[in-house]
């Protein structure tokens, strides 16, 4: 068999695995791979401006298409710059392959130029990683890496390839389907656990579905099955930040998001439920609030493909270790087979409707200043009116929470945000990645003035590939969430939370060949948003919003679901040390 270089073997593997787009940045230790890509124009390479941008683009691509995102970076700084994105993908379970160049094997460990211990550094922020020391092993590793990244609980896998391994040759044959010796994720649930879950659901008086990103990761079938099971049972549905879109926000059974900035009705329903069906969520501290007061009178069923998520924070009564779609299909089948009818939940719904009358997402307006919530609500209305497929990404902070509260999602894979790691700088590159995977969709990044600057250099990437992303900046001249916490906890001592020396975002966009728009008054808001949507090509919007508005409702740290702050009048301005010590 004719031999191929390691670089050619890698590219052959990517083609065999159906890779269409690679987000990357060249450098000394990946030159052979870049040369191989030069000869394989079927793989589209997106040249980023910073390696962190590449990782978030790959995440945005993956989350919006369901396909793994692929990143290619050089050794040393290329790899270390990718670490934040790798960690982000691990926390949010995003399938991603990161290919890093490495110094040649004989130089490993000598402090060579652009050498970093990529395998050591990424060992605990990746799902798995590999150092490939022979071109003969490369094909097996690449295929296995894709298998591991995309199955079970998805995550990032790093493949570190020394430069001499890229040049040395070996025979290449497409590997057989993977039968891994030790990695065998459990897809199908234990029948007894499904039985218990179904019977508990049929007997519950105050059930609630608490859904998460696992529903999205499981694929579109899981969202459809969730809707079916919710319809069969008539139970209310809430979701984590990561799970938005799995269940339609337009449904009567939808309570809004749960947790720290969740709705009054979602948090009270969780607190008062007698049965919580957790579907692909992980009882994160942002969801539970004070643990000893979390859903005190409920039994809990937890469906998760990752056994280590079960009983990690909250003890559950029934553990269903399985893929969400598989488990929900089993539950629906058994529900029907047993002939269960929709229980009479009218008392439960009456209580929920009572909580809804609090209108916890309401906000005051003065008619001139743009309230950030209004900007999101108008953006939602305007993008819906286009009839286009709309994908929203966010950065991290107040704007992210307002987007989660005031933008309604009816379908999975349309909401891309950094939930677990909370990475400022995620949203803008994620939008570019999502647009690469969905060329005809309307992709809008909702950003804050501070977050957007963390990867603002990617303006050039969108220009280069003529990607018509819309960057909608809610500019309040603050790191708003930091300022909000300082108001809650530190008597409004605004230590370093003011965004001094902001750039002129309109001119900045124009410098990169974008269209720039500034919106300063509420009267101009609708028209400004319409112009953004209707203008072809990339558009940056500097939307000046009320500077001091805060995100409510809020469960302050250390508080229970029943102790929500609904408006600024309830803020005391200081906290106990125990509450201060919580994140």
């Amino acid at each position, binding site marked *: 068999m004719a031999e191929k270089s390691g670089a050619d073997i890698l590219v052959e593997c990517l083609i065999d695995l159906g890779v269409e787009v690679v987000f990357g940045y060249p450098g000394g230790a990946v030159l052979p791979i870049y040369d191989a890509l030069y000869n394989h124009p079927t793989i589209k390479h997106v040249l980023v401006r910073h390696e962190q941008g590449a990782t978030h683009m790959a995440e945005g691509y993956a989350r919006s298409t369901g396909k793994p995102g692929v990143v290619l970076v050089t050794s040393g700084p290329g790899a270390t710059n990718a670490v934040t994105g790798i960690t982000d993908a691990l926390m949010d379970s995003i399938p991603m392959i990161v290919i890093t160049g490495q110094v040649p094997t004989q130089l490993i460990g000598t402090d060579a130029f652009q050498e970093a211990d990529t*395998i050591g550094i990424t*060992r*605990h922020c990746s799902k798995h990683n590999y*150092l490939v020391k022979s071109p003969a092993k490369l094909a097996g590793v690449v295929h296995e890496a894709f298998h591991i990244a995309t199955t079970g609980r998805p995550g990032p896998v790093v493949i570190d390839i020394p430069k001499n391994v890229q040049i040395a040759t070996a025979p290449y044959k497409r590997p057989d389907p993977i039968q891994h*010796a*030790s990695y065998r994720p459990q897809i199908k649930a234990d029948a007894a656990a499904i039985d218990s879950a179904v019977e508990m659901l049929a007997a519950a008086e105050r059930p609630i579905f608490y859904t998460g990103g696992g529903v999205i990761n499981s694929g579109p079938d899981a969202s459809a099955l969730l809707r079916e099971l919710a319809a069969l049972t008539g139970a209310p549905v809430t979701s984590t930040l990561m799970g938005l879109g799995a269940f339609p926000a337009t449904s009567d059974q939808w309570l809004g998001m749960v947790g720290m900035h969740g709705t009054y009705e979602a948090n009270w329903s969780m607190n008062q439920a007698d049965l919580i069906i957790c579907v692909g969520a992980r009882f994160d501290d942002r969801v539970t609030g004070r643990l000893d007061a979390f859903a005190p009178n409920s039994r809990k069923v937890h469906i998760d493909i990752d056994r*280590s998520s079960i009983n*990690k924070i909250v003890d559950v009564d029934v553990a269903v270790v399985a893929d969400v779609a598989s488990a929900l299909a089993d539950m629906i089948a058994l529900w029907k087979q047993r002939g269960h009818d929709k229980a009479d939940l009218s008392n439960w719904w009456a209580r929920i409707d009572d909580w809804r009358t609090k209108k916890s997402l309401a906000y005051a307006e003065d008619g001139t200043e743009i309230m950030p919530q209004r900007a999101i609500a108008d953006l939602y209305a305007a993008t819906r009116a286009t009839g286009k497929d709309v994908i929203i990404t966010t950065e991290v902070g107040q704007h992210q929470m307002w987007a989660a509260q005031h933008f309604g999602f009816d379908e999975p894979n349309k909401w891309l945000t950094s939930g677990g790691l909370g990475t400022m700088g995620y949203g803008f590159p994620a939008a570019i990645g999502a647009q690469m995977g969905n060329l005809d969709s309307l992709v809008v990044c909702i950003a804050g003035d501070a977050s957007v600057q963390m990867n603002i250099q990617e303006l050039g990437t969108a220009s280069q590939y003529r990607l018509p992303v819309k960057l909608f900046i809610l500019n309040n001249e603050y790191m708003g969430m930091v300022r909000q916490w300082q108001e809650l906890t530190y008597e409004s001592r605004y230590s370093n939370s003011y965004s001094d020396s902001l750039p002129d975002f309109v001119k900045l966009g124009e410098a990169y060949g974008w269209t720039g728009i500034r919106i300063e008054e509420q009267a101009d808001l609708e028209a400004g948003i319409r112009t953004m949507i209707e203008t072809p090509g990339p558009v940056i919007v500097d939307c000046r919003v009320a500077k001091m508005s805060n995100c409510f409702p809020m469960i302050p740290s250390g508080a229970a679901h029943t102790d929500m702050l609904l408006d600024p009048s309830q803020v005391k301005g200081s906290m106990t040390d*125990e509450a201060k010590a919580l994140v």
Partner: protein
Amino acid sequence: MHIQEELNQRHVLSLTVSNEAGILARIAGLFTARGYNIDSLTVADITPDHGVSRITIVTNGPPKVIDQIIAQLDRLVPVHKVTDLTESGPFVERELALVKVAGTGEERIEALRLADVFRAKVVDTTIESFIFEITGTTEKIDNFVGLMRQIGLVEVGRTGVVGLIRGKEPV
């Protein structure tokens, strides 16, 4: 404000893992990253092709943490199987120690006498010292070392615990 600690239980975990580069760092790093304790850790390959290693870890923590440790270990790609020997019925655990003791006269005789009681073997001797080889449970070795400390302990080398469940079935 003060930070509170929880009560810990000792558990012996037995893992089979693919014998590949970095596996030990992967496991040890998981313990440090998640704040778990390692009292001892042993590793050696156990198959003719050197493809699989057994790692025995003695750890301690509250029951919920032990359960998490097992789940987190099981999640690592190269880990084949994790068994909590402490929970899986009767099991045998052994540790080997080399114990160097110096002394002359009556101390020397007493050291030999105690070694006999503990079935420790003399594996090296000079006029003024012995090295004893002793195997047993951690507690037995602790006791032996404690006694030798009163006689003239110089230093100790210990392997850490290995263990297997009793009966004909594998772990």
